């Protein structure tokens, strides 16, 4: 059972991963409530400001390492300190199927 196709679709997030949102996950500004939301099947998630920035970087082109570098520069924080947090958050989303290995087909 554990070798079913869905298992292969789930991503193990590493510094080399190139993540993007899956088709069922949509990040948008909720203008009525003045905040960003991540829309997924049967749920509306409310990412905090930094999580929104991380999600906006998940464009299917940047690696996680590149994302961490951008965030570290912006917040003047050491990459090793924020790296683990970013990977943990992305892994949670990947485990739920909302984030997939990116590189869109040309």
């Amino acid at each position, binding site marked *: *059972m554990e070798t079913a196709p869905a298992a292969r679709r789930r991503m193990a997030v590493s510094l080399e991963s190139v993540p993007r949102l899956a088709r069922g996950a949509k990040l948008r500004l909720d203008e009525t409530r003045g905040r960003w939301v991540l829309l997924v099947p049967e749920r509306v998630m409310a990412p905090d400001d930094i999580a929104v920035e991380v999600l906006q970087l998940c464009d299917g082109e940047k690696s996680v390492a590149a994302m961490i570098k951008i965030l570290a520069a912006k917040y003047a924080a050491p990459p090793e300190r924020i790296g683990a947090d970013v990977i943990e958050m992305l892994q949670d989303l990947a485990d739920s199927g909302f984030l997939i290995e990116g590189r869109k087909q040309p």
Partner: protein
Amino acid sequence: MSPTVDPNSLSLRADPQDGVALLEGSNGSVAARYGIPLAVLLELTHRCPLQCPYCSNPVEMERTSNELTTEEWKRVLNELAEIGVLQVHFSGGEPTARKDIVELVRHASELDLYTNLITSAVLLNRDKLEALADAGLAHIQISFQGSEASLADRVGGFRNGHAKKIEVARWARELELPLTVNAVMHRQNLDQLESIIAMAVEMDADRIEVANVQYYGWALKNRAALMPTLDQLDRATDIVENARVRLKGILDIDFVIPDYYADRPKKCMGGWGRQFFNITPAGKVLPCHAAETITDLDFLSVRSNHSIAWIWHNSDAFNRYRGTDWMPEPCQSCAFKEIDFGGCRCQAFALTGRADNTDPACSLSPLHQTIFNTAQTEAESGSKRVIYRNFSGGTLEAEPSDGA
């Protein structure tokens, strides 16, 4: 820094992790505190090729001639997007029985609404599904009545339905549509739960909703044929808990238990008029898809001269059981009143004749023990023969398939 994504959710079902914190302001009048829901259920039609005996549609179904037109549904979608709704669930009946389903999905997507299709799948062909995907459909939920054709097709009252559903699920995967398996559970299929979960994994679904039947409307008519035994429920709970661990990262599992066997009532709809509404085929705006079973309430329609937001905030039907002020004892002084909001009004009405009575699912209801005993008795001795749902008030199954 510590990025987080709050998993608090808005759900169509009673769910302890609901998104209320996101929805409510901190002050204002009772009505003003209830912000517009994030998600809305649109019942496009009551027509359906299946005849499931637990259908959540009302027993008195809406005729085709009363259904909102394409233009009316588009106007509804415009209004929903404008007032801040984020997700729409196209449901029915069978929503693909509407010829304009692709057009409506496209219209909703263009408004940036997240679109979900809740379908039996049996009317879909691959071209239609591809058209829906191209129109921006974000997610599809396909109902399954069992893990194998003989039981599933009998419960749905539709020949070869099960095989068709499996085929559509495969197309959904090929089109990269996120897929949820909806499994409605009752005494006659609960023993297939393990294989239904395995089936969902096999078809590469992202999620499965294991929802035990809730007994109003059609399901109440069929309660004796559907009520599970306590043993079955205990086993099902074990199976789900076990599968959640084993399938973490592979299949998300939602589980709704039947409340006749519970001690505490479910937080039905997240509380009446609190975070949910649905729109019926004829355009009535309801606090719950079963609300029309409460016969002394009047529900306003999108065809009235009131806006949807006005109906949500101000109509008598939404305000009648909103919050906690309406509650009689023992609910009024109950420590849990802001946790479960008194359970289910439709169930209170169906079983006690008054919607403001304590939900008999609650152990504090004087009827609780009676309901529990009824459930047990029906589960042990009830017939398997069902009344199929249809427009003529239901049809008793021809003959039991195996020794009921």
